[in-house]
Protein backbone atom coordinates (compact mmCIF):
# COMPACT_ATOMS: atom_id res chain seq x y z
CA UNK A 1 0.00 0.00 0.00
CA UNK A 2 1.31 3.42 -0.95
CA UNK A 3 0.37 5.62 2.01
CA UNK A 4 0.48 8.82 -0.06
CA UNK A 5 -1.89 7.42 -2.65
CA UNK A 6 -4.28 6.16 0.00
CA UNK A 7 -4.37 9.58 1.60
CA UNK A 8 -4.98 11.36 -1.68
CA UNK A 9 -7.90 9.07 -2.48
CA UNK A 10 -9.37 9.48 1.00
CA UNK A 11 -9.08 13.25 0.82
CA UNK A 12 -10.66 13.58 -2.59
CA UNK A 13 -13.52 11.33 -1.48
CA UNK A 14 -14.06 13.66 1.47
CA UNK A 15 -14.05 16.75 -0.67
CA UNK A 16 -16.44 15.24 -3.19
CA UNK A 17 -18.94 14.63 -0.41
CA UNK A 18 -20.31 18.15 -0.74
CA UNK A 19 -23.64 17.81 -2.51
CA UNK A 20 -25.04 19.74 -5.42
CA UNK A 21 -27.88 22.11 -4.88
CA UNK A 22 -30.88 23.04 -6.89
CA UNK A 23 -32.79 26.06 -5.79
CA UNK A 24 -36.46 25.58 -5.03
CA UNK A 25 -38.84 28.52 -5.15
CA UNK A 26 -38.01 29.82 -1.73
CA UNK A 27 -39.87 33.05 -1.24
CA UNK A 28 -43.15 33.95 0.32
CA UNK A 29 -45.16 32.70 3.24
CA UNK A 30 -44.73 28.96 2.74
CA UNK A 31 -41.23 28.25 1.41
CA UNK A 32 -40.21 24.75 0.45
CA UNK A 33 -37.99 23.43 3.26
CA UNK A 34 -35.82 20.41 2.40
CA UNK A 35 -34.37 18.10 5.03
CA UNK A 36 -31.30 19.39 6.85
CA UNK A 37 -28.03 18.14 5.34
CA UNK A 38 -24.36 18.79 5.71
CA UNK A 39 -21.31 17.05 4.30
CA UNK A 40 -18.02 16.80 6.12
CA UNK A 41 -17.13 20.24 4.86
CA UNK A 42 -19.62 23.12 4.72
CA UNK A 43 -20.21 24.62 1.27
CA UNK A 44 -18.13 27.76 1.11
CA UNK A 45 -18.03 30.00 -1.94
CA UNK A 46 -16.56 33.37 -1.09
CA UNK A 47 -16.75 36.56 -3.14
CA UNK A 48 -13.63 37.48 -5.12
CA UNK A 49 -13.37 41.26 -4.66
CA UNK A 50 -12.71 43.37 -7.76
CA UNK A 51 -12.82 47.05 -8.70
CA UNK A 52 -15.86 48.58 -10.39
CA UNK A 53 -13.77 50.31 -13.06
CA UNK A 54 -16.20 51.65 -15.67
CA UNK A 55 -18.93 49.23 -14.64
CA UNK A 56 -22.04 50.14 -12.69
CA UNK A 57 -24.67 48.02 -10.95
CA UNK A 58 -27.67 47.08 -13.07
CA UNK A 59 -30.98 48.84 -12.44
CA UNK A 60 -34.39 48.48 -14.12
CA UNK A 61 -35.09 50.37 -17.32
CA UNK A 62 -36.15 53.92 -16.59
CA UNK A 63 -33.82 54.21 -13.62
CA UNK A 64 -30.30 55.54 -13.27
CA UNK A 65 -27.62 54.67 -10.76
CA UNK A 66 -24.62 56.67 -9.64
CA UNK A 67 -22.03 56.51 -6.90
CA UNK A 68 -22.63 59.49 -4.62
CA UNK A 69 -19.79 58.71 -2.21
CA UNK A 70 -16.70 56.56 -2.58
CA UNK A 71 -13.67 55.69 -0.48
CA UNK A 72 -15.76 55.45 2.66
CA UNK A 73 -14.69 53.26 5.58
CA UNK A 74 -17.11 50.30 5.56
CA UNK A 75 -20.52 51.99 5.06
CA UNK A 76 -23.35 49.91 6.53
CA UNK A 77 -26.59 51.78 7.09
CA UNK A 78 -27.82 55.14 5.83
CA UNK A 79 -30.41 57.66 6.97
CA UNK A 80 -31.98 60.34 4.81
CA UNK A 81 -32.45 63.51 6.90
CA UNK A 82 -35.42 65.86 6.41
CA UNK A 83 -33.39 68.34 4.37
CA UNK A 84 -32.18 65.60 2.03
CA UNK A 85 -28.73 65.16 3.59
CA UNK A 86 -27.67 61.55 4.01
CA UNK A 87 -25.95 60.13 7.07
CA UNK A 88 -23.80 57.04 6.57
CA UNK A 89 -22.79 54.81 9.50
CA UNK A 90 -19.33 53.34 8.93
CA UNK A 91 -17.65 50.68 10.99
CA UNK A 92 -16.72 47.11 11.52
CA UNK A 93 -17.55 45.51 14.84
CA UNK A 94 -17.36 42.09 16.35
CA UNK A 95 -14.11 40.51 17.36
CA UNK A 96 -15.58 37.39 18.90
CA UNK A 97 -12.72 35.27 20.25
CA UNK A 98 -11.62 32.13 18.45
CA UNK A 99 -13.02 29.10 20.23
CA UNK A 100 -12.34 26.25 17.84
CA UNK A 101 -9.82 25.45 15.09
CA UNK A 102 -12.72 25.96 12.69
CA UNK A 103 -13.01 29.63 13.71
CA UNK A 104 -9.41 30.22 12.62
CA UNK A 105 -9.86 28.65 9.20
CA UNK A 106 -13.40 29.83 8.38
CA UNK A 107 -12.60 33.34 9.64
CA UNK A 108 -9.61 33.58 7.32
CA UNK A 109 -11.56 32.29 4.30
CA UNK A 110 -14.53 34.61 4.89
CA UNK A 111 -12.30 37.66 5.35
CA UNK A 112 -11.15 37.21 1.71
CA UNK A 113 -14.65 38.24 0.60
CA UNK A 114 -14.76 41.54 2.44
CA UNK A 115 -13.04 44.91 2.21
CA UNK A 116 -9.60 45.16 3.84
CA UNK A 117 -10.31 48.79 4.84
CA UNK A 118 -10.46 49.54 8.57
CA UNK A 119 -13.92 50.52 9.78
CA UNK A 120 -14.42 54.27 10.17
CA UNK A 121 -16.33 54.22 13.48
CA UNK A 122 -17.97 57.43 12.35
CA UNK A 123 -20.97 59.03 10.68
CA UNK A 124 -20.37 60.72 7.36
CA UNK A 125 -22.80 63.36 6.09
CA UNK A 126 -23.43 63.68 2.34
CA UNK A 127 -25.09 66.78 0.90
CA UNK A 128 -26.49 67.60 -2.50
CA UNK A 129 -27.16 71.32 -2.08
CA UNK A 130 -28.34 72.02 -5.63
CA UNK A 131 -30.48 68.92 -6.02
CA UNK A 132 -28.73 67.65 -9.15
CA UNK A 133 -28.19 64.17 -7.74
CA UNK A 134 -24.47 64.72 -7.20
CA UNK A 135 -23.49 64.90 -3.54
CA UNK A 136 -20.73 67.47 -3.58
CA UNK A 137 -20.23 67.61 0.19
CA UNK A 138 -18.91 64.65 2.16
CA UNK A 139 -17.95 65.48 5.72
CA UNK A 140 -17.56 63.70 9.04
CA UNK A 141 -20.66 64.35 11.17
CA UNK A 142 -19.45 62.45 14.23
CA UNK A 143 -16.50 60.20 14.92
CA UNK A 144 -14.95 58.13 17.70
CA UNK A 145 -18.00 55.90 17.65
CA UNK A 146 -17.86 52.15 18.18
CA UNK A 147 -19.05 50.31 15.08
CA UNK A 148 -22.20 52.43 14.55
CA UNK A 149 -24.93 50.68 12.59
CA UNK A 150 -28.60 51.47 13.25
CA UNK A 151 -29.72 55.07 12.68
CA UNK A 152 -32.99 56.85 13.41
CA UNK A 153 -34.12 60.47 13.64
CA UNK A 154 -37.20 61.77 15.44
CA UNK A 155 -37.89 65.41 16.29
CA UNK A 156 -34.38 66.73 16.68
CA UNK A 157 -32.99 63.57 18.22
CA UNK A 158 -30.60 61.50 16.19
CA UNK A 159 -30.26 58.00 17.56
CA UNK A 160 -27.21 55.88 16.77
CA UNK A 161 -26.82 52.24 17.73
CA UNK A 162 -23.17 51.49 18.37
CA UNK A 163 -22.25 47.84 18.73
CA UNK A 164 -22.29 48.29 22.52
CA UNK A 165 -24.58 51.23 23.30
CA UNK A 166 -27.53 53.26 22.12
CA UNK A 167 -26.65 56.95 21.76
CA UNK A 168 -28.52 60.18 21.12
CA UNK A 169 -27.22 63.29 19.40
CA UNK A 170 -29.10 66.58 19.27
CA UNK A 171 -29.79 67.40 15.65
CA UNK A 172 -30.88 70.60 13.99
CA UNK A 173 -31.76 70.72 10.33
CA UNK A 174 -28.83 71.80 8.20
CA UNK A 175 -26.16 70.72 10.68
CA UNK A 176 -23.09 69.18 9.09
CA UNK A 177 -21.34 68.31 12.33
CA UNK A 178 -22.66 67.08 15.65
CA UNK A 179 -22.86 70.04 18.03
CA UNK A 180 -21.70 67.98 20.98
CA UNK A 181 -20.88 64.55 22.19
CA UNK A 182 -23.59 61.95 22.31
CA UNK A 183 -25.68 61.05 25.35
CA UNK A 184 -25.84 57.37 26.18
CA UNK A 185 -29.39 56.11 26.46
CA UNK A 186 -28.51 52.55 27.42
CA UNK A 187 -25.83 49.94 27.04
CA UNK A 188 -26.56 47.21 24.54
CA UNK A 189 -25.52 43.56 24.90
CA UNK A 190 -21.97 43.43 23.57
CA UNK A 191 -20.18 40.53 25.27
CA UNK A 192 -18.53 38.44 22.53
CA UNK A 193 -20.65 40.16 19.82
CA UNK A 194 -20.50 37.35 17.24
CA UNK A 195 -23.34 39.12 15.39
CA UNK A 196 -22.42 42.66 16.38
CA UNK A 197 -24.75 44.84 14.29
CA UNK A 198 -27.38 46.70 16.30
CA UNK A 199 -30.25 47.67 14.06
CA UNK A 200 -32.55 50.47 15.02
CA UNK A 201 -35.98 51.96 14.34
CA UNK A 202 -37.98 54.62 16.16
CA UNK A 203 -41.72 54.91 16.60
CA UNK A 204 -43.25 57.94 14.90
CA UNK A 205 -43.92 59.67 18.22
CA UNK A 206 -40.30 59.26 19.21
CA UNK A 207 -41.15 57.63 22.54
CA UNK A 208 -40.07 54.12 21.68
CA UNK A 209 -36.96 52.78 20.05
CA UNK A 210 -36.56 49.27 18.73
CA UNK A 211 -33.11 47.68 18.72
CA UNK A 212 -32.33 44.47 16.84
CA UNK A 213 -29.72 42.33 18.61
CA UNK A 214 -28.21 39.33 16.81
CA UNK A 215 -27.38 35.97 18.33
CA UNK A 216 -23.89 35.25 19.66
CA UNK A 217 -23.41 32.20 17.46
CA UNK A 218 -24.65 30.39 14.40
CA UNK A 219 -26.53 27.81 16.44
CA UNK A 220 -25.46 27.98 20.13
CA UNK A 221 -21.92 26.76 19.48
CA UNK A 222 -20.68 29.41 21.91
CA UNK A 223 -22.87 28.00 24.65
CA UNK A 224 -26.31 28.94 25.92
CA UNK A 225 -24.91 31.39 28.50
CA UNK A 226 -23.65 33.58 25.64
CA UNK A 227 -27.20 33.96 24.33
CA UNK A 228 -28.69 35.90 27.23
CA UNK A 229 -30.31 39.05 25.78
CA UNK A 230 -29.41 37.97 22.25
CA UNK A 231 -31.42 37.07 19.14
CA UNK A 232 -34.22 39.46 19.94
CA UNK A 233 -35.63 42.91 19.39
CA UNK A 234 -35.56 45.22 22.38
CA UNK A 235 -38.14 47.88 23.00
CA UNK A 236 -36.33 50.84 24.58
CA UNK A 237 -37.95 53.86 26.20
CA UNK A 238 -36.24 56.79 24.49
CA UNK A 239 -36.24 58.94 27.62
CA UNK A 240 -35.31 56.58 30.43
CA UNK A 241 -33.38 53.96 28.49
CA UNK A 242 -35.43 51.22 30.15
CA UNK A 243 -35.81 48.18 27.91
CA UNK A 244 -37.73 44.94 27.58
CA UNK A 245 -37.74 42.22 24.97
CA UNK A 246 -40.26 43.09 22.26
CA UNK A 247 -39.97 39.85 20.29
CA UNK A 248 -37.53 36.95 20.69
CA UNK A 249 -36.09 34.01 18.76
CA UNK A 250 -35.04 36.26 15.85
CA UNK A 251 -31.55 34.96 15.05
CA UNK A 252 -30.06 38.11 13.55
CA UNK A 253 -32.48 40.99 12.97
CA UNK A 254 -30.12 43.04 10.82
CA UNK A 255 -32.48 45.84 9.81
CA UNK A 256 -35.72 47.26 11.17
CA UNK A 257 -38.29 49.57 9.59
CA UNK A 258 -41.56 51.13 10.68
CA UNK A 259 -44.37 50.70 8.16
CA UNK A 260 -45.77 54.09 7.15
CA UNK A 261 -49.42 54.46 8.06
CA UNK A 262 -49.72 51.48 10.38
CA UNK A 263 -46.68 52.10 12.59
CA UNK A 264 -46.02 48.34 12.51
CA UNK A 265 -42.41 47.25 13.09
CA UNK A 266 -40.90 45.09 10.33
CA UNK A 267 -37.54 43.34 10.27
CA UNK A 268 -35.29 41.38 7.98
CA UNK A 269 -33.66 38.47 9.79
CA UNK A 270 -30.68 36.31 8.86
CA UNK A 271 -31.29 32.67 9.64
CA UNK A 272 -28.92 29.84 10.55
CA UNK A 273 -26.24 28.25 8.36
CA UNK A 274 -24.67 24.86 7.76
CA UNK A 275 -27.73 22.68 7.30
CA UNK A 276 -27.85 22.86 3.53
CA UNK A 277 -27.98 25.27 0.60
CA UNK A 278 -31.74 25.71 0.94
CA UNK A 279 -32.02 26.01 4.70
CA UNK A 280 -32.92 28.18 6.45
CA UNK A 281 -34.56 31.01 4.48
CA UNK A 282 -33.70 34.52 5.62
CA UNK A 283 -36.91 36.40 6.05
CA UNK A 284 -38.89 39.60 6.13
CA UNK A 285 -41.53 39.77 8.82
CA UNK A 286 -43.82 42.05 10.73
CA UNK A 287 -42.46 41.74 14.25
CA UNK A 288 -45.29 40.69 16.53
CA UNK A 289 -44.97 41.92 20.08
CA UNK A 290 -44.27 39.24 22.67
CA UNK A 291 -43.89 36.43 20.14
CA UNK A 292 -41.09 33.88 19.78
CA UNK A 293 -39.69 33.16 16.31
CA UNK A 294 -37.84 29.94 17.04
CA UNK A 295 -34.10 30.56 17.33
CA UNK A 296 -32.27 28.51 18.42
CA UNK A 297 -34.65 25.63 19.07
CA UNK A 298 -36.53 25.66 15.80
CA UNK A 299 -36.71 27.40 12.43
CA UNK A 300 -39.56 28.65 10.28
CA UNK A 301 -42.06 28.02 13.01
CA UNK A 302 -41.68 24.64 14.61
CA UNK A 303 -39.05 22.79 12.56
CA UNK A 304 -36.76 21.54 15.32
CA UNK A 305 -33.03 22.18 14.89
CA UNK A 306 -31.35 19.04 16.20
CA UNK A 307 -28.03 20.81 16.74
CA UNK A 308 -29.26 22.50 19.90
CA UNK A 309 -28.77 20.84 23.30
CA UNK A 310 -30.55 20.92 25.64
CA UNK A 311 -33.65 21.01 23.49
CA UNK A 312 -36.72 22.93 24.58
CA UNK A 313 -39.87 21.54 23.03
CA UNK A 314 -42.09 23.90 25.02
CA UNK A 315 -40.41 26.85 23.37
CA UNK A 316 -40.69 25.12 20.00
CA UNK A 317 -44.43 24.73 20.54
CA UNK A 318 -44.72 28.49 21.08
CA UNK A 319 -42.71 29.44 17.98
CA UNK A 320 -44.44 31.26 15.13
CA UNK A 321 -43.41 31.29 11.48
CA UNK A 322 -42.31 34.59 9.95
CA UNK A 323 -44.24 36.26 7.12
CA UNK A 324 -42.10 36.11 4.01
CA UNK A 325 -39.06 34.05 3.01
CA UNK A 326 -36.39 35.89 1.02
CA UNK A 327 -34.37 32.76 0.21
CA UNK A 328 -31.71 30.87 2.16
CA UNK A 329 -28.32 32.50 2.76
CA UNK A 330 -29.10 35.74 0.85
CA UNK A 331 -27.96 37.68 3.95
CA UNK A 332 -30.54 40.44 4.03
CA UNK A 333 -28.91 43.42 5.77
CA UNK A 334 -31.16 46.31 4.82
CA UNK A 335 -34.87 47.04 4.60
CA UNK A 336 -36.84 50.20 3.85
CA UNK A 337 -40.39 51.00 2.79
CA UNK A 338 -40.86 52.53 -0.62
CA UNK A 339 -43.15 55.37 -1.65
CA UNK A 340 -44.88 56.85 -4.68
CA UNK A 341 -41.81 58.85 -5.69
CA UNK A 342 -39.99 55.62 -6.58
CA UNK A 343 -42.25 55.12 -9.61
CA UNK A 344 -45.55 53.27 -9.87
CA UNK A 345 -44.02 49.80 -10.32
CA UNK A 346 -42.01 50.09 -7.11
CA UNK A 347 -44.27 52.32 -5.05
CA UNK A 348 -45.88 49.81 -2.69
CA UNK A 349 -43.44 47.46 -0.99
CA UNK A 350 -40.02 47.25 0.58
CA UNK A 351 -36.50 47.24 -0.75
CA UNK A 352 -34.17 44.66 0.78
CA UNK A 353 -30.37 44.82 0.56
CA UNK A 354 -28.84 41.34 0.24
CA UNK A 355 -25.16 41.13 1.16
CA UNK A 356 -24.83 37.71 -0.47
CA UNK A 357 -24.11 34.15 0.61
CA UNK A 358 -20.99 32.30 1.75
CA UNK A 359 -22.55 28.97 2.74
CA UNK A 360 -23.79 27.97 -0.70
CA UNK A 361 -22.07 26.30 -3.68
CA UNK A 362 -24.26 28.37 -6.00
CA UNK A 363 -24.12 31.86 -4.44
CA UNK A 364 -27.29 33.90 -3.97
CA UNK A 365 -28.03 37.45 -2.89
CA UNK A 366 -25.50 40.12 -3.88
CA UNK A 367 -28.33 42.44 -4.97
CA UNK A 368 -31.14 44.68 -3.82
CA UNK A 369 -34.61 43.26 -4.33
CA UNK A 370 -38.05 44.83 -4.18
CA UNK A 371 -40.77 42.90 -2.37
CA UNK A 372 -44.16 44.15 -3.57
CA UNK A 373 -46.89 44.71 -0.96
CA UNK A 374 -50.66 44.73 -1.27
CA UNK A 375 -52.94 45.86 1.55
CA UNK A 376 -49.94 46.30 3.79
CA UNK A 377 -48.63 42.72 3.36
CA UNK A 378 -46.02 41.16 1.07
CA UNK A 379 -47.62 39.93 -2.13
CA UNK A 380 -45.70 38.22 -4.91
CA UNK A 381 -42.12 37.23 -5.63
CA UNK A 382 -39.19 39.56 -5.06
CA UNK A 383 -38.05 41.58 -8.07
CA UNK A 384 -34.39 42.47 -8.69
CA UNK A 385 -33.95 46.20 -8.29
CA UNK A 386 -30.18 46.65 -8.15
CA UNK A 387 -27.99 43.76 -9.33
CA UNK A 388 -24.74 43.19 -11.21
CA UNK A 389 -22.63 43.20 -8.06
CA UNK A 390 -21.32 39.71 -8.69
CA UNK A 391 -20.42 37.86 -11.91
CA UNK A 392 -21.01 34.16 -12.39
CA UNK A 393 -17.26 33.51 -12.12
CA UNK A 394 -17.29 34.88 -8.57
CA UNK A 395 -15.82 38.30 -9.39
CA UNK A 396 -17.58 40.61 -6.95
CA UNK A 397 -17.44 44.37 -7.18
CA UNK A 398 -19.83 45.25 -4.40
CA UNK A 399 -21.98 43.92 -1.58
CA UNK A 400 -25.17 45.80 -0.66
CA UNK A 401 -25.98 46.45 2.99
CA UNK A 402 -28.34 49.18 4.18
CA UNK A 403 -31.04 50.69 1.98
CA UNK A 404 -32.95 53.95 2.50
CA UNK A 405 -35.61 55.62 0.42
CA UNK A 406 -35.18 59.34 -0.13
CA UNK A 407 -38.75 60.74 -0.04
CA UNK A 408 -37.92 62.82 -3.11
CA UNK A 409 -37.57 59.66 -5.15
CA UNK A 410 -34.30 57.76 -4.82
CA UNK A 411 -33.00 54.60 -3.24
CA UNK A 412 -29.77 54.95 -1.29
CA UNK A 413 -27.69 51.75 -1.10
CA UNK A 414 -24.60 51.32 1.09
CA UNK A 415 -21.98 48.94 -0.35
CA UNK A 416 -19.43 47.74 2.20
CA UNK A 417 -17.15 45.93 -0.27
CA UNK A 418 -16.40 48.82 -2.64
CA UNK A 419 -16.96 51.36 0.20
CA UNK A 420 -19.45 53.23 -1.96
CA UNK A 421 -22.89 54.74 -1.48
CA UNK A 422 -25.10 54.27 -4.54
CA UNK A 423 -28.14 56.29 -5.49
CA UNK A 424 -30.82 54.82 -7.74
CA UNK A 425 -33.44 57.22 -9.07
CA UNK A 426 -36.11 57.24 -11.74
CA UNK A 427 -34.57 58.77 -14.87
CA UNK A 428 -35.74 62.32 -15.34
CA UNK A 429 -37.77 62.77 -18.47
CA UNK A 430 -36.59 65.48 -20.83
Amino acid sequence: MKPGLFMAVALSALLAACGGDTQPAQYGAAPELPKPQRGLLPDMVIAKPAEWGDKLPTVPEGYTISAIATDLKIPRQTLVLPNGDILVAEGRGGGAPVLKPKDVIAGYIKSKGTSPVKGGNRLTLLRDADGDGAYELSTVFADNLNAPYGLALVDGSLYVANQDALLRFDYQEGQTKASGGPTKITDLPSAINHHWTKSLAASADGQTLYVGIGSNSNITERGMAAEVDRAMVWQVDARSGAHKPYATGLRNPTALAIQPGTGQLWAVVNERDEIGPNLVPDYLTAVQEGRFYGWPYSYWGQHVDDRVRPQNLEKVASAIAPDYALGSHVAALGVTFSNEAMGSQFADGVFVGEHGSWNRADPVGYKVVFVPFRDGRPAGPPVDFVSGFRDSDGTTRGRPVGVSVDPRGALIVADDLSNTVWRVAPARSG
Partner: protein
Amino acid sequence: MEVIIERRYSEAIFPLHALLLAGTVPLFLGAALSDAAYASTYEIQWSNFASWLIVGGLIFAGLALLFAIVDLCIPSRRRARGAGWYALILLITWVLGFVDALLHARDAWAAMPAGLALSVIVTLLACVAAWFGFCTPRIGGMK
Protein backbone atom coordinates in the same frame (compact mmCIF):
# COMPACT_ATOMS: atom_id res chain seq x y z
CA MET B 1 20.91 -22.60 23.56
CA GLU B 2 20.32 -20.41 20.56
CA VAL B 3 19.23 -16.88 21.29
CA ILE B 4 17.33 -15.03 18.61
CA ILE B 5 16.97 -11.29 18.74
CA GLU B 6 13.95 -10.34 16.72
CA ARG B 7 14.31 -7.01 15.01
CA ARG B 8 11.03 -5.19 15.23
CA TYR B 9 12.80 -2.15 13.93
CA SER B 10 16.30 -1.58 12.71
CA GLU B 11 17.13 -0.21 16.08
CA ALA B 12 15.19 1.23 18.94
CA ILE B 13 12.74 3.85 17.77
CA PHE B 14 14.27 7.33 17.46
CA PRO B 15 13.57 9.36 20.63
CA LEU B 16 11.67 12.22 18.94
CA HIS B 17 9.65 9.67 16.99
CA ALA B 18 8.88 7.91 20.28
CA LEU B 19 7.83 11.15 21.94
CA LEU B 20 5.45 12.01 19.10
CA LEU B 21 3.98 8.54 18.93
CA ALA B 22 3.44 8.28 22.68
CA GLY B 23 1.97 11.78 22.82
CA THR B 24 -0.65 10.91 20.23
CA VAL B 25 -2.41 8.57 22.64
CA PRO B 26 -3.28 10.99 25.48
CA LEU B 27 -4.28 13.70 22.98
CA PHE B 28 -6.87 11.53 21.27
CA LEU B 29 -7.86 10.02 24.62
CA GLY B 30 -8.42 13.51 25.98
CA ALA B 31 -10.60 14.29 22.97
CA ALA B 32 -12.69 11.17 23.53
CA LEU B 33 -13.14 11.97 27.22
CA SER B 34 -14.04 15.58 26.43
CA ASP B 35 -16.60 14.38 23.90
CA ALA B 36 -18.07 12.10 26.53
CA ALA B 37 -18.24 15.01 28.96
CA TYR B 38 -20.02 17.17 26.35
CA ALA B 39 -22.47 14.38 25.60
CA SER B 40 -23.39 14.03 29.25
CA THR B 41 -23.44 17.72 30.24
CA TYR B 42 -24.17 19.64 26.99
CA GLU B 43 -21.50 22.06 28.22
CA ILE B 44 -20.04 23.37 24.95
CA GLN B 45 -16.59 24.04 26.34
CA TRP B 46 -15.93 20.28 26.43
CA SER B 47 -16.57 20.16 22.70
CA ASN B 48 -14.11 23.02 22.18
CA PHE B 49 -11.50 21.11 24.19
CA ALA B 50 -12.09 18.03 22.06
CA SER B 51 -11.63 20.04 18.85
CA TRP B 52 -8.21 21.32 19.90
CA LEU B 53 -7.06 18.01 21.34
CA ILE B 54 -7.84 16.37 18.01
CA VAL B 55 -5.74 18.97 16.21
CA GLY B 56 -2.93 18.21 18.65
CA GLY B 57 -3.34 14.50 18.02
CA LEU B 58 -3.23 15.07 14.27
CA ILE B 59 0.00 17.08 14.53
CA PHE B 60 1.71 14.48 16.74
CA ALA B 61 0.43 11.52 14.72
CA GLY B 62 1.25 13.27 11.45
CA LEU B 63 4.88 13.89 12.44
CA ALA B 64 5.23 10.35 13.82
CA LEU B 65 3.85 9.13 10.50
CA LEU B 66 6.54 11.09 8.65
CA PHE B 67 9.19 9.32 10.73
CA ALA B 68 7.58 5.96 9.99
CA ILE B 69 7.38 6.66 6.26
CA VAL B 70 10.99 7.82 6.15
CA ASP B 71 11.99 4.63 7.97
CA LEU B 72 10.12 2.57 5.40
CA CYS B 73 11.63 4.44 2.47
CA ILE B 74 15.28 4.24 3.42
CA PRO B 75 16.43 0.98 1.84
CA SER B 76 19.69 0.81 3.76
CA ARG B 77 17.85 0.44 7.07
CA ARG B 78 17.05 -3.13 7.88
CA ARG B 79 13.46 -3.29 8.91
CA ALA B 80 11.84 -5.64 11.29
CA ARG B 81 8.53 -7.35 10.71
CA GLY B 82 5.68 -5.16 11.86
CA ALA B 83 7.17 -1.85 10.76
CA GLY B 84 4.89 -1.74 7.72
CA TRP B 85 1.83 -2.57 9.81
CA TYR B 86 2.77 0.12 12.26
CA ALA B 87 2.94 2.75 9.51
CA LEU B 88 -0.35 1.60 8.00
CA ILE B 89 -2.23 1.68 11.31
CA LEU B 90 -0.80 5.09 12.11
CA LEU B 91 -1.93 6.29 8.67
CA ILE B 92 -5.46 5.02 9.27
CA THR B 93 -5.40 6.65 12.70
CA TRP B 94 -4.45 9.95 11.11
CA VAL B 95 -7.06 9.79 8.33
CA LEU B 96 -9.88 8.92 10.73
CA GLY B 97 -8.59 11.57 13.12
CA PHE B 98 -8.84 14.09 10.30
CA VAL B 99 -12.42 13.03 9.60
CA ASP B 100 -13.05 13.42 13.34
CA ALA B 101 -11.65 16.96 13.17
CA LEU B 102 -14.07 17.79 10.34
CA LEU B 103 -16.95 16.34 12.35
CA HIS B 104 -15.96 18.53 15.26
CA ALA B 105 -16.04 21.59 13.00
CA ARG B 106 -19.80 21.20 12.89
CA ASP B 107 -21.65 23.53 15.21
CA ALA B 108 -22.85 22.44 18.64
CA TRP B 109 -24.55 19.06 18.81
CA ALA B 110 -24.17 18.50 15.04
CA ALA B 111 -20.75 17.01 15.90
CA MET B 112 -22.51 14.35 17.97
CA PRO B 113 -22.86 11.44 18.49
CA ALA B 114 -20.62 10.52 15.53
CA GLY B 115 -17.82 12.69 16.92
CA LEU B 116 -17.70 10.78 20.20
CA ALA B 117 -17.78 7.39 18.47
CA LEU B 118 -14.99 8.35 16.10
CA SER B 119 -12.86 9.86 18.87
CA VAL B 120 -13.07 6.54 20.74
CA ILE B 121 -12.14 4.57 17.61
CA VAL B 122 -9.21 6.88 16.84
CA THR B 123 -7.99 6.60 20.43
CA LEU B 124 -8.03 2.80 20.22
CA LEU B 125 -6.21 2.90 16.86
CA ALA B 126 -3.60 5.25 18.33
CA CYS B 127 -3.04 2.74 21.14
CA VAL B 128 -2.58 -0.10 18.63
CA ALA B 129 -0.21 2.01 16.51
CA ALA B 130 1.83 2.90 19.59
CA TRP B 131 1.93 -0.78 20.60
CA PHE B 132 3.32 -1.82 17.25
CA GLY B 133 5.68 1.12 17.13
CA PHE B 134 7.18 0.37 20.49
CA CYS B 135 7.77 -3.34 19.96
CA THR B 136 11.49 -2.78 20.17
CA PRO B 137 14.06 -5.56 20.00
CA ARG B 138 14.44 -7.52 23.18
CA ILE B 139 17.41 -9.52 24.15
CA GLY B 140 16.59 -12.87 25.54
CA GLY B 141 13.58 -13.73 23.41
CA MET B 142 13.40 -17.51 22.89
CA LYS B 143 12.42 -19.24 19.74
